[in-house]
């Protein structure tokens, strides 16, 4: 009896030990696999992944020091206040040193609370009037009371009126025209006009008059630089060029520059340029759309029947490769009679601003002389390179060429994210062989394991059937037959 009890106890202990061993080995194998995936994924994403993860996720503990100190009254903050500008808005930046026994900071402006519960040691007050005196007090809050800093006074800057808007035409047809008066002689009929303004992202309106009446609306970059190349040959007559820069936020900030220019002589280079230009037009896949007025049919009358403006509606002015570019085109009639029908040609240019990457034609019916907005959607080509591109809309109305431009950012379309890495089509295509191999390997392993499991199940069924047959004596009978 005693022996049987001992044997039972030993058996159950053995079973418990075995199940514990099984659990430990399963957990160990799982952790090893997890570690393996971590190493492979980390090395694929970033060779310094371990240090980065340790710093950003886990944190690095260099040493542990235990100290005990009795909490006292919070220390007195020493604050500085600096007046500055955030674009055209005034602001005041407050900075102070961290104080002891402090849990948070409050700020008072002119004796009234401005903000409370700050844990940082700096603050930007952007709700201020220009050219106004303010007095700030920083109050440190702690478990044992509060301590206020000495008041700091500051006068805010006037960021809007201090800087008058400027706009200047710098080059026409590669010739520096800054500071030149009178009629400037240029050597090309396809001039590129460049200039600058001190208004970031200004709305630029280029108007050519006296001959070849043309109005172009475009946007300067964040440095105030703008550039435009005439898409058709200008006539050899005298032209007036007026460029107006308008602040996109404060539309009363306007600056204008005017120059006169005229074609002087056609050089050999110009002839070559013309030939090359014609060749480019022929080789582009969109030659079916007559976007450039034929030479010789240059406009004769001054005055524009309408104006165009173009706006990119995508959030942040960014669109994905292969995605949609949402545009808003405003047609503003200027002179009566207005044309009843217009053909708008949308073009997307390469980064150099000259090569046409995409073109789309849209017919518009003008019902009356009221401004009209249309919202075309351009499907961006999948081969478009990421970066800053120009989209333009142009039309010809009553022998006048009218155009508008806007910038937009092309981003790569992320397909999926693994961790913090966005996998894009470009990444897949750049390592297409590895991608296919990995995918095939995963599918192969999955199918292999599935087949193995199916084989095991079939074998188990076979064994069960065999056992049943043995139990019922069929095998014995067979053995008997042989006997």
């Amino acid at each position, binding site marked *: 009896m005693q022996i049987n009890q001992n044997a039972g106890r030993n058996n159950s202990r053995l079973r418990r030990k075995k199940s514990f061993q099984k659990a430990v080995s399963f957990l160990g194998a799982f952790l090893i696999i997890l570690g393996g*995936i971590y190493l492979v*994924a*980390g090395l694929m994403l970033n060779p310094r*992944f371990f240090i980065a993860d340790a710093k*950003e996720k886990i944190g690095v503990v260099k040493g542990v020091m235990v100290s005990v100190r009795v909490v006292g009254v919070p220390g007195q903050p020493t604050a500085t206040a600096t007046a500055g500008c955030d674009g055209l808005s005034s602001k005041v930046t407050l900075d102070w040193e961290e104080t002891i026994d402090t849990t948070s900071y409050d700020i008072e402006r002119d004796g009234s609370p401005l903000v409370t519960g700050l844990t940082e040691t700096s603050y930007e007050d952007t709700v201020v009037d220009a050219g106004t005196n303010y007095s700030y007090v920083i109050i440190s809050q702690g478990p044992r009371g509060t301590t206020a800093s000495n008041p700091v006074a500051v006068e805010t800057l006037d960021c809007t009126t201090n800087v008058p808007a400027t706009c200047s035409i710098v080059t026409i047809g590669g010739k520096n025209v800054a500071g030149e008066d009178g009629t400037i002689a240029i050597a090309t009929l396809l001039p590129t006009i460049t200039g600058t303004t001190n208004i970031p992202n200004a709305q630029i309106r280029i108007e050519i008059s006296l001959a070849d009446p043309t109005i172009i609306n475009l946007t300067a970059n964040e440095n105030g630089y703008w550039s435009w190349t005439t898409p058709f040959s200008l006539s050899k007559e005298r032209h007036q060029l007026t460029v107006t820069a308008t602040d996109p936020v404060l539309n009363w900030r306007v600056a204008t520059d005017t120059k006169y220019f005229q074609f002087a002589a056609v050089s050999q280079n110009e002839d070559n340029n013309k030939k090359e230009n014609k060749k480019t037009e022929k080789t582009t896949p969109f030659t079916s759309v007559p976007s450039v007025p034929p030479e010789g049919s240059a406009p004769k009358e001054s005055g524009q029947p309408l104006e165009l403006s173009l706006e990119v509606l995508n959030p942040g002015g960014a669109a994905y490769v292969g995605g949609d570019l949402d545009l808003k085109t405003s047609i503003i009639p200027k002179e009566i009679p207005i044309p009843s029908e217009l053909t708008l040609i949308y073009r997307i240019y390469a980064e150099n601003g000259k090569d046409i990457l995409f073109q789309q034609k849209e017919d518009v019916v003008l019902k009356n002389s009221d401004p009209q907005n249309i919202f075309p959607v351009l499907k961006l080509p999948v081969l478009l390179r990421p970066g800053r591109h120009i989209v333009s809309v142009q039309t010809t109305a009553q022998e006048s060429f009218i155009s508008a431009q806007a910038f937009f950012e092309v981003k790569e379309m*992320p397909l999926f994210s*693994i961790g913090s890495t966005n996998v894009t089509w470009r990444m897949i295509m750049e390592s297409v062989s590895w991608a296919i191999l990995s995918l095939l390997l995963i599918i192969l392993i999955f199918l292999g394991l599935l087949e193995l*499991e199916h084989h095991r199940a079939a074998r188990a*069924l076979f064994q069960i059937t065999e056992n049943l047959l043995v139990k019922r004596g069929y095998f014995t009978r067979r053995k008997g037959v042989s006997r």
Partner: protein
Amino acid sequence: MSYAIDATFETAIIFVSLFSIIYTAGVVWRVEKKLDISYKFFLIAIITFTLSEIANLVRREALPWAGEAALILKLLFALFFLKGVLTMRRMVRIMDGEINPEKE
């Protein structure tokens, strides 16, 4: 930005789910009747869970409906898992003699 931790967990979830599919399918091939049915529900639940995890990796910019698809698949996972559990519970109750299927 974390580099490998998120990627490790996401990859591990998908691989563990794939293994679950394989072994659940193995159980379906081995067993019969109510147990087979309950494991079939578990299998569908695991497949929908794996698909929802894959759909979660897909960016909204590439497929705008991927997020909604992931949610629907997750809901299907919960429903099929519950159905599997209920089927197995009923089977256990019949085995315990709590329910008599012939009377119902």
